[in-house]
């Protein structure tokens, strides 16, 4: 019997497949189907502080600013005691998942203010989260903001949250750092329990009819997992914290590659949205089948076996690989070049 267990943020998971933040976790029955399909833990969709604030402002408007000063109406929409704010809904959802699932539930938080990070982190811990993912989104549109300032912001947020909560904290990072390795090391020193590589950023689009800038959301593809694979391979063995791979993991092949690179867990999102919760079981089976064929006994055995430190050609993870990649590109048959 293959031992699929893995260690993640100090917890032992039955396997390395952990669905990441997605709408699936919003629905308890979907979350249960994920668990039934074999998910080892679940990362909730993020609690966005902006959304919490916007919701509070909406409630404030409903409670105090509906009136327009006309005698016949002091309000227009009924607000009753049963009104549940976005934060309450999220906390209830978290508590609900904890009640109905046996696997660990990781809450995810996207804050915007120092107070928001810490306050909400405590609330999530109190609501039963087994661990906390800090999903930091920061767009340095201020041209005077230095890379050092940006990185310090990450450290400051982590330090503040770690002071407030006892549960493990992991950080979801974007790939847009000058020196990712150094940042991860700094985070480790600051007390992070794990990092999740990499976050995908919202990218704007344009509507050519209206010339309006519009939000665009495209699901990831397998190709995107390569970036995570490289950096997990680079970091494996050089930091002691949990390494989670996210973005672009669609198949058991993708997952295995990330584990070989050194990931403790692999997060899946787009593929599950596309194929449904049960697809996780297929990935798990595929993974086991591959391990059987290759005669791996455990995930622990294969984890990091093709990392930068242990790969046949470590340089392939670095710049030399760049030349090879370019050189290997050729047009499809039938295209003149």
């Amino acid at each position: 019997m293959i031992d699929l267990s893995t260690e993640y943020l100090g917890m032992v998971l039955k396997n390395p497949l952990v669905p990441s933040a997605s709408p699936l976790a919003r629905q308890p029955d979907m979350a249960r189907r994920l668990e039934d399909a074999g998910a080892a833990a679940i990362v909730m969709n993020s609690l966005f502080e902006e959304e919490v604030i916007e919701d509070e402002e909406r409630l404030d408007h409903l409670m105090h600013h509906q009136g327009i000063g006309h005698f016949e109406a002091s309000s227009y929409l009924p607000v009753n005691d049963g009104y549940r704010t976005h934060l309450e809904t999220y906390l209830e959802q978290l508590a609900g998942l904890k009640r109905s699932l046996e696997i660990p539930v990781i809450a995810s938080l996207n804050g915007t203010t120092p107070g928001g990070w810490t306050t909400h982190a405590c609330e999530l811990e109190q609501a039963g989260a087994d661990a906390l993912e800090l999903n930091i989104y920061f767009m340095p549109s201020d041209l005077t903001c230095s890379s050092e300032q940006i990185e310090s912001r990450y450290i400051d947020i982590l330090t503040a949250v770690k002071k407030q909560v006892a549960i493990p904290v992991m950080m979801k990072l974007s790939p847009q750092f000058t020196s990712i390795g150094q940042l991860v090391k700094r985070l480790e020193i600051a007390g992070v329990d794990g990092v999740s590589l990499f976050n995908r950023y919202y990218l704007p689009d344009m509507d050519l009819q209206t010339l309006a800038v519009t939000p665009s959301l495209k699901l990831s593809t397998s190709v995107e997992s390569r970036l995570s694979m490289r950096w997990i391979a680079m970091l494996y063995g050089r930091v002691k914290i949990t390494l989670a791979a996210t973005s672009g993991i669609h198949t058991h092949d993708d997952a295995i590659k990330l584990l070989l690179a050194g990931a403790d867990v692999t997060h899946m999102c787009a593929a599950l949205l596309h194929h449904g919760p049960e697809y996780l079981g297929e990935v798990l089976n595929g993974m086991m089948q591959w391990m059987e064929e290759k005669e791996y006994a455990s995930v622990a055995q294969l984890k990091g076996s093709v990392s930068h430190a242990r790969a046949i050609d470590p340089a392939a993870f670095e710049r030399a690989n760049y030349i090879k990649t370019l050189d290997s590109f050729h047009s499809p048959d039938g295209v003149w070049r």
Partner: protein
Amino acid sequence: MAKQCVTIDGNEAAALIAHRTNEVIAIYPITPSSAMGEMSDSWSNQGRTNLWGAIPAVVEMQSEAGAAGTVHGALQTGALTTTFTSSQGLLLMIPNMYKIAGELTSTVFHVAARSIAAQALSIFADHSDVMAVRQTGFAMLSANSVQEVMDFALIAQSATLKGRIPIVHFFDGFRTSHEINGVKVLGDEVIKAMLPDALVRAHRSRALSPDSPCVRGSSQNPDVYFQGRESVNPWYEAMPAIVQDCFDSYAGLTGRQYQLFEYHGAADADRIMILMGSGAEAAVETVDHLLRRGEKVGVLKVRLFRPFSATHLIAALPVTVKKIAVLDRCKEPGADGEPLYKDVVTALATYVGSGGDRFFAMPRIIGGRYGLSSKEFTPGMIRAVFDELGKQAPKNHFTIGIYDDVTHSSLDWQEMAVDAGLNVTRCMFYGLGSDGTVSANKNSIRIIGEGTDLFAQGYFVYDSKKAGAVTISHLRFGPELIRSTYLIGHDEAHFIACHQPLFLERYDMLAYAAKGAVFLLNSPHSADRIWHQLSKTMQQQIIDKALQFYVIDAYKVAADSGMGRRINTVMQTCFFAISGVLPKEQAIASIKAAVEKTYGRKGGKMVERNFAAIDAALAHLFRVTVPEQVSSNTEMKAAVTADAPDFVRHVTGEMMAGRGNAIPVSLMPADGTWPSGTAAFEKRNLALEIPVWDQELCIHCGKCPFVCPHAAIRSKVFPADAAADAPPGFKHVPVIGREFEAGMHITYQVAPEDCTGCGLCVEICPVRDKSHASRKALNMAPQPPLREQERHNWAFFRSLADYDREQIRWGGLKGAMLAQPLFEFSGACVGCGETPYIKLATQLFGDRMVIANATGCSSIYGGNLPTTPYTTNAEGRGPAWSNSLFEDNAEFGLGFRLAIDAHRDYALQLLQTPGLYIDPALIAAIRDADQSDEPGIHEQRQRIAQLKTHLAGCDGELARNLESVADDLVKKSVWIIGGDGWAYDIGFGGLDHVMASGRNVNILVLDTEVYSNTGGQMSKSTPMAAVAKFAAGGKSVPKKDLSMIAMAYKHVYVGHVAFGAKDLQTLKTFIEAESYDGPSLIIAYSPCIAHGVDLSHNIRQQELAVESGHINLLRFDPRRAAAGKNPLQLDSKKPSIPYKTFAQSEARFSMLWRTHPDAAERLLQRAQQGVLERFHHYEQLASLSYEKEEGNDD
């Protein structure tokens, strides 16, 4: 009275008991009683139970008549049942009230008493409505204060179950229904003690049941009906004693003792005032004041008006009484006295005439009217009545509170302060309707009323406008129960706050300041500069009254604290810091505690921000050093310009300036007829930003004037040389389009002082600067720097001649928008979704339009004085407008049609009269005129002018008669306008009948999908899954498809439009509908603040509504069927976005996810399915072939 426990208003006091003591509640919205129904619905929705552990069933009906019918039915089948209403609503219940009383059925109707529409509608308090039901057989119990409302709601419930006589429990609308005051809430033990289960079972035992069947409601004949009516006498005879018994039991439970007729005053009083309602509380204050000064006066409060117990009345009067003034809060024109007066006269005359010897002699009794439509009733007025009684020959049938210089009924009075006010702190707050001032003040009242030993009272005066409305809060705090049922008067306020600097130039607020009062002003000007911004009058007032003057830049403090433009917390903090009502530290701690209580864990960030605002407010509040001398040369702006007509200056202008109370009777139009077009004289300067036209980019599409809700941006085409003398900044360019002659220019001009700054014109503008995507052909810019320049430009624009209507190409927006809007500058909300439709109709047909307007938003912004937005063109023609009622509008409009047609037919008949010698060619031309277009109408007008010239030279009655109806030979356009509450609910029966009549009327339904004017209650137009008042759990059934119902007639033109989604379709629909010689129905989708959207997104919301299939744009033209074509044209495409995308963009839907997530998902899925099915159905109907098959003659 001991210290109060909670601070609530009268409506809540009544609803608390009604909901706790009933099983069925049938409701319908009407101001000022709507809140009772709203609270009941909300409480049931939250699972709150009645005394017996059941959740009362709350059901909204289609009208008050429907509610009364439902109440009757529920009572007949044994449920404890109630309803709430006011005014016309109570009148609609009358038929059922006779039945309910005739059948000796126990119920209580809670009524917030309000005026009845006569020469005009009024939403304010008097007893016209309750007096109109005194004959129904209901008992009538009058509560004078918020505490009494709660007490009497329960006492009435108890008495009706004991005595079987139904009761109207009434209290004064607004004054009591909306006054916040301290009350002791009744515990269940009191309620249970007053309502033993045995009484409830007895009520139930009288229910109709097939298990013990009987017949009730039979038809009786001359032989027994009379006796049947008399058979109830014992119950009526017993009722006063039963009510008194309930009063006494209640006193035993609560310590509050009431009497059927309650006397307060000198035991040896010689002058007595008798009245009922809130005014009696002011009378008590005044009597106490006069007693201390040795006057022998008293007041008798009437509690139980029906059954009227003369015995109790006489027993309650001091034996020493010599003169009595009976005051009625209503008017019975043509009667020799009002109802209460006549009852008192009858009682005393009968008593004395039959030998009663309680009094030394028959007292002299005079009657008077006071307080109609919430007219103030003050100690000074009450004193004047006692003074009148002191005269040798006091005036009978007097009025008090107005200046009647026509029939000289009024008494003179001088305002005076009473002792009761000595230790009371009086505060006034001038706020913007939407800035949260009222909410903050209610919060302050609770802080003080519930957290200290002080008593608190709050009353709020609102505006007649919906956009940029002012609210004036009147707050009193004192060590004793506050009975002052009147506004704070001149020189009385100890604290005055002006929350909006704009109000300084509009209101003489410091006239209300007492000597040494505190004046708090929100202004961007610093403490050392603010003095120079004040008018001469204001500076003088501050110096003369030695006011303590403070200033704060609340908008800056709020913005810096993350509160945006919400200044309520900042201003509330300042109030507590400097008013001296509470020690500052205690007050600040209380505000913070209130903030935490308000938001709790629902609003951590809001708590944080509010706390920051509170702290920052204190740091940014500065006292102004007041100079000893006045330095200003400016004066407050006149309400209207000097060139306004006399009537506008002396009547409308005075009303605008807040001096309407001083207008004498002689200046009032006796029959309710007011001049059109007075809104143009009121320059409200509401917009912070106004649109600026970029004439280089503009393509002259006409969309901006089309969407403007206030007709504040307009286009005009004119010969270039007409602008030779234009002000320097006046922009104009050669007009694009071959339809215009060479040398013609076009301008798009904003009315800077009338624009409300909604930004819809910019939103709709389709043109973008090629090298700067955010710039359009219209861009918003701050108003103040543009105000003067654009004011001159606007005046010049007005002076330019309008483009010739005969030359206009009506099929396109550019052409149609050259027509003058004859509906302008209304008081509608900023960004209103309704008014563009009305404005369009007046542009197209306004000079021959007669409008019947159902009560609702459109009648309020259309006809709520002081100003009138319907106006006239250069020839003096324009829409003639009237509002009858809510329920009868279609019928009212049909009456217009019938009269106009009758006069037209009569005129045609007279034309042919030989003795008038009218040119036969002219007769034929008039008779056969084609008036289907503008030139045709113009020519007919010329013919009528020719006819009138001829008739002027003719003698005789026939000529005069023809002159009187000749104008009806020009085509008139009858419009029946109202909201969905009218069309889908209360007026549907009439609407249906008028459609069926086949007559040529145009029905415009401004469909906001709720009762907007009364605060967003559900109508049958409300879509499934939307939250509305009376549908707090989301509406569970779909919107009624009025289009489909109307189309079923086949002969009705039906159009469904959404101007923001497809403007040309809207234009086309209006033109087609009006041209159809039969009934036309236009259902006009109108985004509303009640949807929970910012109306600056009005256009986007209409697009989403159409794209999602929520609204299907269509036209059904019976003329097409006659021509062998399918009459139905579907103008919108298949739904292209999920319904959820539309629903999530509006709080009315999205908040259901917050309150009832499961229901939200379920209802949304059904709604999605519903829109797809409906579209599919319409699509199939629109594709049916109407071509006649060969050989088929059917």
